[in-house]
């Protein structure tokens, strides 16, 4: 049935994944899985380092290499996966 009033959205206690923006999600994903390092992120401009890391990730995961945080890339970042880093140790 159609909702007669806007749905209330609540913050559920104990939920770990909450409130991360797409950009924050991407940054933590790229760092966690080895596509960028904290040092790299500090030494180059944020936009350049993000695009470079995104290309690296997109290549590794067989996605179109756009260097952009597009829908497919975000979808891949949200997909269930193994916790072992893709790059590095």
């Amino acid at each position, binding site marked *: 049935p159609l909702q007669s009033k806007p749905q209330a*959205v609540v913050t559920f206690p104990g939920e770990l994944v909450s409130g991360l923006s797409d950009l924050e999600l991407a940054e933590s994903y790229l760092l966690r899985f080895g596509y960028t390092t904290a040092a790299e992120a500090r030494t180059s401009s944020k936009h350049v380092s993000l695009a470079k890391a995104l290309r690296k990730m997109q290549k590794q995961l067989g996605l179109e290499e756009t260097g952009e945080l597009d829908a497919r890339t975000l979808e891949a970042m949200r997909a269930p996966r*193994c916790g072992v880093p893709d790059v590095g140790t």
Partner: protein
Amino acid sequence: FLTFEGDLKWDHMDLTYRVMNYSPDLDRAVIDDAFKRAFKVWSDVTPLTFTQIYSGEADIMIMFGSREHGDGYPFDGKDGLLAHAFPPGRGIQGDAHFDDDELWTLGTGLVVKTRHGNANGADCHFPFVFEGRSYSQCITEGRTDGLPWCATTASYDRDKKYGFCPSELLYTNGGNSDGAPCVFPFVFDGTSYNACTTDGRSDSYRWCATTANFDQDKKYGFCPNRDTAVIGGNSQGDPCVFPFTFLGQSYSACTSQGRQDGKLWCATTSNYDTDKKWGFCPDRGYSIFLVAAHEFGHSLGLDHSSVREALMYPMYSYVQDFQLDPDDVRGIQYLYGEQPWCSQEWDPMVLGWPQPHALPCIGSGRGSGPEPTAPVPAPTEEPQPLPTEAGSTSTTEEEEETPAPTAEPIPVDPSRDACVENNFDAITEINGELHFFKDGKYWTLSSFWDSGIQGAFSIADAWPGLPAVIDAAFQDVLTKRVFFFAGRQFWVFSGKSVLGPRGIEKLGIGKEAGRISGALQRGRGKVLLFSGESYWRLDVKVQRVDKGYPRATDDIFTGVPLDAHNVFLYQDKYHFCRGSFYWRMTPRYQVDRVGYVKYDILQCP
């Protein structure tokens, strides 16, 4: 594929593993079986062996845990990270950890294995009917002891088959009570408990005392999850409580209200608004077998692959009929080599024949196995008749005569690539070219012209009147007539005429045969027809099977899969296909090669 830096690998082939604890989501027998199958994925293609041990330090220690679980690499609650494993080595190296905030299943939803009852531990059948009502979860109706139960067939009323569902009232896992059930109420730290609790623990596992007083007896066990247990949230493992109140409204089922992601959740007390206790409702879950097979790849030295179809691709996706991708096989064989029976040193008299489920040798080129000595023609047991002329068979009233194919088929869809097909309806050699049939199309491959795969062509154009899906075909070597089989019917194409369809009972093949899975030409005028685990010998001239048949395929074709989907003769050798693989057998009935239809026969890139 990728290996870890420095090609980390085990220095021995006889590896041990130990399961340190079990997820409450699944019966431990189901988990043990899944791990065993996951290791077998790798031992099938390498000389590695895996033995489960129950105490002491194993090469691969396996555990379930959540959040920070002791190694500095915390999990992240439900979804997201599922598991991780460490490359080969001592200590934590080689170990595999699984996030117990996930719902572990076999990939398609809750697996509720029963105990006791009268169904020999069968899984629950949901929904099931009890006293005229349909139930999709374990129930306590009909009992006074509160033990949840389910039917193991669709109708308890009809079949009376049942078993008890996981419950702390029936048994506990781990702990120090040998599986004894919880005792309620029990006293812990001076407080009385009427249900399983996570109090006193930092890992969120639910436990109970198995005597009335833990403080005094120190006897405890971990509670198995009921089928209504929630995943994640802040009540992992607790059952949903229906009805519950949320924002003043009453809910009698899981809901997605209050969430933007559409995930279903429930409260684990009767009032979310006051207690704020909740968790996600069971979904399909993640296959412990698939995730374990991936993690064990890491434990053996494989890093993530960039091949999407590979097991070692980092993202999870559920596949029903799992088969190891060639990329994974190449990776693991790069580290450990091939099965002994793939090597030149393999002696079947010593090591035995490869099992039908074994995977192929695709590695360093050693995989072709021992080649037979001079080919021996298949013996014919009876004098063979002279060839008949093409088209000489009479037409009966039930047979239709229709035009036969033109000599040169025209590709109808060159873009339809045989290499994307996982298997074929039928494979046979016609006029010296292998034909691969699938869903109304077919491709050809000539070993003589080296022109690669040709097609796709239309079956309807080439052999009008045939159904789109055919089960088997063969060309009579004497008359060049082509026989096609689909279901229990067959057609014979000769020159420009076709006879059929006719029932295979006309050939003398009884109702015990379903589909004909393939055919092997045996000398002049005789063809073996395979169905199920049996075969018949057809006298092509008289179109009747010989007396003394069917015979068991296993009697002489030992070491090939008995449930082969295609059977055909190619380059004087017998080929038995199952899934993506084929078993090649010499005329001396020796399996001399197991390989991929796609890569080894079709020569796909």
